[in-house]
């Protein structure tokens, strides 16, 4: 700022000196719209423009109809109607109304390349002794406009891409504890774009059952662990599944500065996965139940009929022989008939049993050479999808060079699936959920074990678990382990169970090596 005593000097400046000293583009126009004065900055703009218009350096005294008129008295020759030129219109308006123009944004299409030029015009009427003049100030904001448009376009592309991919992204600033979400992120969480958000607001949206898990994983991420999780959120009362990934940036002391993450809507995939897993599970159950069920249904009906007949007959005979039968002699003829029927029905029952044994013998599979690792790999998708649903981490530790066993592949797969299902069903509470399927072998035996981190076994006698129809589950049939045991024993192996040192149990079966004895 100038000191007070310099002021008289300023006053002595000529108007030319004044114009030379102003660092922004300013023109002084007379009532005929001729340029009387302009600042160097103004001259610079139009010298640039005049080049593109093919003219020479900017000169004074030209009629301003539009920008190019500064260079060309015939008008710019490119804007078809001078009457539509916003610059010209602004100048004429000011002369007509005397009202100043403040920061008016106008767009001009400048040929020959036809690019858009954005200007901010401010202008003021001066009543000078020499006549009415206009002081005109331009600001060329084309570059800024271009940058803004580009940004808007980039945002639009990002937004559309995110919408298509159903991926939102976010940025988190740890200093201010604020988050920036993309519109798609807002949409995924059912929030109005622009709503202020922070981590707590996000956590509120997470399904209550997953909150603890999500928060734990986030703490781990802040401590440097990778962050890639799937969890449920609740949007307008509906459950959605999302997959989240994030990277945390820290200072050199490991203190988090900011994080960038993505969130993807995977509800559709999850639904498919769940449907598939459910289907597979049902299939499995159906095949097991029908094979067993058909046999037992046929068996029960066939057996119950003769047993009923025998029971009824015997009890009828007992009544006939009872001493209080009104003092009458028992009807011996009738009793003889009854006994003959009892013999007949007993034979009928025995015949049924004989038939079942024949049937069972026939249905025994022929054991073949079998690689248990391969057998396990075949059922992994099924087990994996179950693990996914139950939020269990799955470890598969298959011994390389596992010796082959001898057995029926499908039956042994059935055993492993049964054990895995039991494992999953035992891990419904809190705590780490981990299922490990492991194979080990030596020259005599191969062992498959299924280890869980569930409730463990609480019964006094673990042998009870293997009894048919023993179950502690509401929906359980109690046949899983019974079937397993009979399959393993039919293979000349053993099935055993042990509580782990930590939580959970390990079920394992040991089979003889093929060719080994």
């Amino acid at each position: 700022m100038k000191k007070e005593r310099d002021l008289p000097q300023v006053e002595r400046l000529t108007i030319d000196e004044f114009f030379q000293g102003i660092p922004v583009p300013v023109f002084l126009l007379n009532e005929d719209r001729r340029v009387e004065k302009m600042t160097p900055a103004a001259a610079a703009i139009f010298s640039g423009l005049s080049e593109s218009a093919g003219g020479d350096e900017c000169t004074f005294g030209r009629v301003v109809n539009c920008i190019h008129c500064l260079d060309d008295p015939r008008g710019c020759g490119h804007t078809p109607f001078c009457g539509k030129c916003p610059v010209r219109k602004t100048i004429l308006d000011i002369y007509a109304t005397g009202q100043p123009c403040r920061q008016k944004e106008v767009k001009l299409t400048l040929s020959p390349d036809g690019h858009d030029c954005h200007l901010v015009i401010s202008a003021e009427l001066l009543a000078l002794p020499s006549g009415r003049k206009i002081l005109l100030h331009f600001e060329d904001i084309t570059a800024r406009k271009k940058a803004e448009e580009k940004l808007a376009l980039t945002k639009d592309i990002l937004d559309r891409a995110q919408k298509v991919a159903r991926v939102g992204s976010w940025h988190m600033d740890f200093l201010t504890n604020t988050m920036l979400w993309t519109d798609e992120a807002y949409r995924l969480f059912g929030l109005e774009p622009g709503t202020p958000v922070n981590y707590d607001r996000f956590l509120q949206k997470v399904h209550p059952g997953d909150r603890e898990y999500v928060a734990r994983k986030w703490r781990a991420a802040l401590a440097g662990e990778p962050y890639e999780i799937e969890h449920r959120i609740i949007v307008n009362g509906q459950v959605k599944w999302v997959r989240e990934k994030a990277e945390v940036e820290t200072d050199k002391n490991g203190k988090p500065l900011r994080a960038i993450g993505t969130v993807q809507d995977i509800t559709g995939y999850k639904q498919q996965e769940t449907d598939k897993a459910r289907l597979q599970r049902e299939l499995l159950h159906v095949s097991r139940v029908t094979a067993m069920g058909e046999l037992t249904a046929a068996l029960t009906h066939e057996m119950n009929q003769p047993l009923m007949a025998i029971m009824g007959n015997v009890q009828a005979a007992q009544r006939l022989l009872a001493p209080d039968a009104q003092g009458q002699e028992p009807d011996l003829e009738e009793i003889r008939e009854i006994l003959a029927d009892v013999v007949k029905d007993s034979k009928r029952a025995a015949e049924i049993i004989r038939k079942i044994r024949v049937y069972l013998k026939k249905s025994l599979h022929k054991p073949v050479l079998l690689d248990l690792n391969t057998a396990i790999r075949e059922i992994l998708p099924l087990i994996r999808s179950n693990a996914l649903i139950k939020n269990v981490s799955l470890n598969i530790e298959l011994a390389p060079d596992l010796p082959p066993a001898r057995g029926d592949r499908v039956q042994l797969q059935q055993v492993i699936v049964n054990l895995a299902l039991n494992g999953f069903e035992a891990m419904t509470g809190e705590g780490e959920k981990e299922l490990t399927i492991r194979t080990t072998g030596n020259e005599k035996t191969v062992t498959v074990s299924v280890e869980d981190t569930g409730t463990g076994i609480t019964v006094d006698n673990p042998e009870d678990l293997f009894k048919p129809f023993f179950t502690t589950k509401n929906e359980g049939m109690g046949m899983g382990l019974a079937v397993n045991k009979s399959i393993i024993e039919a293979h000349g192996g053993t099935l055993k169970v042990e509580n782990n040192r930590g939580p959970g149990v390990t079920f394992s079966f040991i089979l003889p090596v093929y060719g080994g004895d």
Partner: protein
Amino acid sequence: MPPTVFIVDDDPSVRKSLERLLRASGFTTQAFASAEDFLACRPCQNPKEPACLVLDVRMPGISGINLQQKLAKTGIILPVVFITGHGDIPMSVQAMKDGAIDFLPKPFAEKELLAAVEQALTKAARLQEETAEKAEIHRRVNTLTPREYEVFRWVITGMLNKEIAAELRVTEKTIKVHRARVMQKMAAASLADLVRLAEKIGIASEKRSSSGN
């Protein structure tokens, strides 16, 4: 004659042994090899004395469950004890809802069968009594003239003669005469008695709207 137990089961051995057992326990029995055979026996479906049905669930042709439904539809009141060789649990639930007495899985002990049959016969007796009583009430209602019937319907709502007279636009005296006839024909000792009779045959005694319908 001892009460009758009808047996329907397609297995001849079972049928025969059940007949023997029930007879030895003092019942009259009549056995059928199929639901169709039973349906063909008209008098069986309308026994004079209390009777019941021991019915196998699964049979070729009309199943036991279907037979029960058919009988229920034609208004035949024969309490049913189901017996089955399968574990037909879901079926049994429906059957019990439809009023089956019990659902006995074969092979069952004599005790269970006899208890169920006794229960069924008790129910049969009660049902027969109720039916007879209803028939008697209906018979009495049928002796009422249309006008008397109308008065009867008003009286059981608890309205006074004066009110009924106003409603029917006749004199109170006329209503008094009609009312006396109704009580006499219905053999009712009191208003409360009359209301009870009406309720037994499902005539509601709520106040009727006076809109004239």
